[in-house]
């Protein structure tokens, strides 16, 4: 830290500093990322509570008890949403290392692992394809329908930061939204996962993550925002 060498900077820096100091306006420091992540997760919790009011909870509990992999998968998707949101809020700050993107991976592995177990089990039991296809379509519509407002809320909150890794931030935010949407889906779709069901879930997750990544590339890119 050669602070004493402050006189060696070139004139262009001095000119830029003069301009920046002249342009200075008071700013409100960002609230703690835990609080900001908590607000978004609170929004997800409120959505879950509303869905729980309309859901057939006894049927849901019965289905989950019969197939432990289902609640394990639900736990995994919820964990992905929580860890993904925390990681996304970290990545929206300029001084955070990209390693924060690894934070939601345990939840994601848990989620995909439990879904895979359920998938293997239902390969043997599966029969009525028409019914499964109809359910899958409804699932996809629900996931995308939930993902849009959750994405908008998350993007608006993350925009308050200043990410130097906009694509990574968008990708992790997509993971959090996908995890939250699939967790909420469990309230209205308390059935066994199936091979195709998991494929549709994955497609939904990829769609949300990709949409967020594409949007994130522009939305969180500080340079683009000032062009």
């Amino acid at each position, binding site marked *: *830290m*050669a*602070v*004493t*060498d*402050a006189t*060696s*900077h*070139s004139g*262009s*820096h*001095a*000119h*830029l*500093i*003069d*301009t*920046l*100091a*002249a*342009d*200075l*306006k*008071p*700013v*409100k*420091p*960002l609230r*703690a990322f835990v609080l900001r992540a908590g607000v978004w997760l609170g929004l997800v919790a409120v959505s879950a509570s509303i869905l729980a009011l309309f859901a057939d909870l006894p049927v849901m509990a019965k289905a989950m008890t019969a197939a432990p992999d289902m609640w394990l998968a639900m736990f995994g998707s919820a964990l992905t949403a929580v860890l993904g949101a925390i990681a996304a809020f970290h990545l929206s*700050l*300029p*001084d*955070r*290392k990209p390693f924060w993107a690894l934070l939601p991976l345990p939840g994601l592995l848990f989620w995909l692992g439990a879904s895979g177990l359920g998938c293997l089990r239902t390969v043997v039991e599966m029969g009525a394809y028409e019914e499964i296809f109809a359910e899958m379509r409804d699932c996809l519509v629900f996931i995308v329908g939930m993902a849009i407002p959750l994405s908008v809320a998350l993007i608006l909150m993350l925009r*308050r*930061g*200043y990410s*130097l890794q906009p694509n990574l931030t968008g990708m992790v935010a997509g993971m959090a939204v996908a995890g939250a949407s699939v967790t909420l889906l469990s309230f209205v779709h308390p059935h066994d996962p199936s091979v195709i069901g998991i494929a549709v879930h994955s497609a939904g997750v990829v769609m949300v993550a990709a949409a967020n990544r594409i949007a994130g590339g522009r939305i969180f890119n*500080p340079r683009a925002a*000032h*062009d």
Partner: protein
Amino acid sequence: MPDKGKQAHYAETDRQWSAWMALAQAGDSRAYDALLRDCLPFIAQVARGQRVPADRVDDVVQDVLMTVHRARHTYDPSRPFTAWLRVIAQRRAVDVLRRSGRQNSREIYAPLAYELHPDPAAGPAAGWEKSGLSQQIGKAVSGLSPGQREAVEQLALKDQSLEQAAMVTGRSKGALKVNLHRALSALRGQLDNKE
């Protein structure tokens, strides 16, 4: 013992910078000015530590200054400022290295070829022609609209970057680009007519 003294000096500097940044967040431009000037050697040192070539260190410094300005609301005064600045400087250094890597893959460094290339404009009457031409250009520039003239002055004559010009003029980068483009078209038209 000297290490302890050094650590105390670092800690004191960090406290000072954190305090200046907190004041800057509240709008104190004098504290902000002092902070940015004091940080310059530190930013350059981080850039050199990331193996940024000497001729690119200034680019990193400028990028970091702009980033600090735009991201100043994300700094938490309860955390060390030096660590915050170091990560930003490291990331901007990597950005500059990537940018220069891409540039080097497209361009070649041939100083001899550059020196030996004959200047087609150099001739006995070049000075006289140039003085006439600069008068013509000056006259043409003064005939432009204020926005276009500003764009030409900042971007072409003063050789400012788009970001700097936007700061100075208070116009957006897009508006500056459009004004420059229109100004160049207008100047080309005027100069072609005179020829």
